């Protein structure tokens, strides 16, 4: 199946982590640096072998700080690059992520969530890093956060994540968890020619001497490869179109608003969600994402009565948030209660609440104990209890 080539079209049976790794290679990732941490290590084991086979670069970094900075260096050299980690390692990468945002370097960061805070429970999954992925930054930044719910989505979301990173020139996140990462599932790989692969826009050498690194009419400047004679300077300091550090109100406003506008401008292409509302005749909506969605979906599929009582809204991409879409659905379906089901002490719930603030809808939280996955039946019971709370 694997061989020296890229994963073949057809049906495969893969874990979420392996699906991410294979999709990355198919998307053109040719640089991986990482540091071992449960439950992401098996992704690195897989790619350690496969990256050599496809002729890319694999390196085990001395720590996660090195890993993120190495992939930024690789991206600066023009390669598509990725790292995978879990909570504690993700925390160590934060400063590097912001550098990537400032230097406008595409990269994909996979966080296979485990139970935190601190060392928590390394072997069990959770959804505790949602806030960190979306907001974990000094200063303002906005990126794209994918939340796959099964191996098939691990595969397709990874390809989309690379495309988004290249399009937007920024680090992009895949937030999976131990449950998704280690469950096996069917992964259908389409014909390679049918897979859309995006490459970053590049300056060609005829513009040497004229082009500036950060001058754009649009939101995303074209990329210049080093070593060609562009002689560009890049800095994490606030900088002008030449990439030179300056302390200036106009320059600061212009750069920050352009960086933030990248997401706003591409929002409609990035936002994705699923709605389950067949048989729906009630007034309650469940908002759920990632691995917990796959459990909720099973409960939903199995029980017609449950389908009558709840509609399910599930963002594929946590950020940018499908808030406008959620609002119109809530109105359209006549929802008066929204239950946000997540495996943490309440994170995405705050964003749902603020999205629906003025609609007079009750937003309740259903917080699953991190690490301890309910069965579909148990989940259904818990949802019913919250519904009965009046």
């Amino acid at each position: 199946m694997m061989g020296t080539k890229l994963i073949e079209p057809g049906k495969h049976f893969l874990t979420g982590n392996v699906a991410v790794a294979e999709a990355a290679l198919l998307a053109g990732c040719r640089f991986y640096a990482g540091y071992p941490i449960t439950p992401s290590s098996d992704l690195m084991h897989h790619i350690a072998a496969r990256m050599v086979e496809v002729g890319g670069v694999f390196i085990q970094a001395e720590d996660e700080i090195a890993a993120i900075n190495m992939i930024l260096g690789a991206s600066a050299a023009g390669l598509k690059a990725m790292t995978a980690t879990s909570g504690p390692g993700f925390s160590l990468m934060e400063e590097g992520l912001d550098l990537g945002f400032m230097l406008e370097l595409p990269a994909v960061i996979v966080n296979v969530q485990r139970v935190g805070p601190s060392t928590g429970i390394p072997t069990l999954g959770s959804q505790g890093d949602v806030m960190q992925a979306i907001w974990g930054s000094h200063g303002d930044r906005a990126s794209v956060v994918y939340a796959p719910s099964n191996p098939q989505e691990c595969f397709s979301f990874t390809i989309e994540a690379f495309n988004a990173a290249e399009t937007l020139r920024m680090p992009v996140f895949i937030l999976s968890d131990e449950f998704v990462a280690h469950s096996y599932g069917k992964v259908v790989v389409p014909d390679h020619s049918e897979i859309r692969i995006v490459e970053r826009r590049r300056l060609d050498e005829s513009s040497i001497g004229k082009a500036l690194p950060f001058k754009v009419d649009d939101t995303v400047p074209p990329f210049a490869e080093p070593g060609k004679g562009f002689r560009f300077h890049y800095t994490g300091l606030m900088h002008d179109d030449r990439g030179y550090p300056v302390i200036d109100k106009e320059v600061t406003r212009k750069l920050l608003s352009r960086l933030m506008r990248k997401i706003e401008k591409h929002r409609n292409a990035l936002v994705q969600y699923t709605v389950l509302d067949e048989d729906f005749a009630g007034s309650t909506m469940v908002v759920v994402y990632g691995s917990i969605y796959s459990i909720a979906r099973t409960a939903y599929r199995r029980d017609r009565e449950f389908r009558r009582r709840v509609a399910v809204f599930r963002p594929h991409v946590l950020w940018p948030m499908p808030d406008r879409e959620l609002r119109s659905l809530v109105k359209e379906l006549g929802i008066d209660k929204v239950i946000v089901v997540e495996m943490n002490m309440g994170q995405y719930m705050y964003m749902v609440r603020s999205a629906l603030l003025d609609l007079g809808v009750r937003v309740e939280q259903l917080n699953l104990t991190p690490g301890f996955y309910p069965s579909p039946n148990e989940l259904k019971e818990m949802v019913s209890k919250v519904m009965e709370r009046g």
Partner: protein
Amino acid sequence: MASRALPPPYKDIEDLVRVERLPTIWCPGCGIGIVFKTLLKAIKEYGDDIDRHVIVSGIGCAGRFAGYVRLDGYHVLHGRAIPFAVGLKLSKPQLEVTVVSGDGDIVGIGGNHFIHAARRNHDINVVLINNLVYGMTGGQLAPTTPLGARTMTSPYGNIEHPVNIPLLASAAGATYVARWSVFHVEQMKRSFLKMFKHKGFSVIEIISPCVIYARRNRMEILDMYELLRKMCKVKQNPDPREGEIDIVSGKPVVLGEFVSIEKPTYESLYSELVEKVRKNE
């Protein structure tokens, strides 16, 4: 614009200087400018395609180095210039990647990366400008600060044993290790040329007087130049164990080439590995 033209001794490197960014942030009397001029002269003299050279700097006064060089340059995070440089080099081996940064940046906060990049013998260059202090942030204790020296965070005199950079570099596995001072411009340049040619992890430490350090230790900057000039001793192939710096008690600062050996680089071993694996498939 008059203030932005370079003085005559710099004419030959003017095309490698971002003249429009002058004046630099470096204090009058700072030693970094000497390293700047010498490195750019070496790049010119090396002769090879100049656009292959890339400069990566961390954060600090020395960390501003990349920003004044008219080459592809990256001013990255405090302590993280080395892993960024490793990513660049592994991805584009034809680049000649040189890290220029401060002592605090490279062996303080970035110490772990320094050790492991040396151990793997990455084919990159590290120019470590050692001013014995954290200059940019106002003169705090650095891992290089000599015993007894005063800084903002050792107001009664430093009680921490400083790091011996040549010993650390050689123990970690660096394959070219030298130390010069800003008084040894010719030797410095020859070392830079060797470093470009050398296949493997090169470390060149430059002892550089700092206005902030001098002030905290109640010296005029010229006194500090005089002090260092007197204390620096060039030796033929010194032992890295002789690299300890103890200027407060008056021991000489040993300069020279501590290590110059051949060892396969990570880059060459990696490309051989890829070739072998792909052939066997």
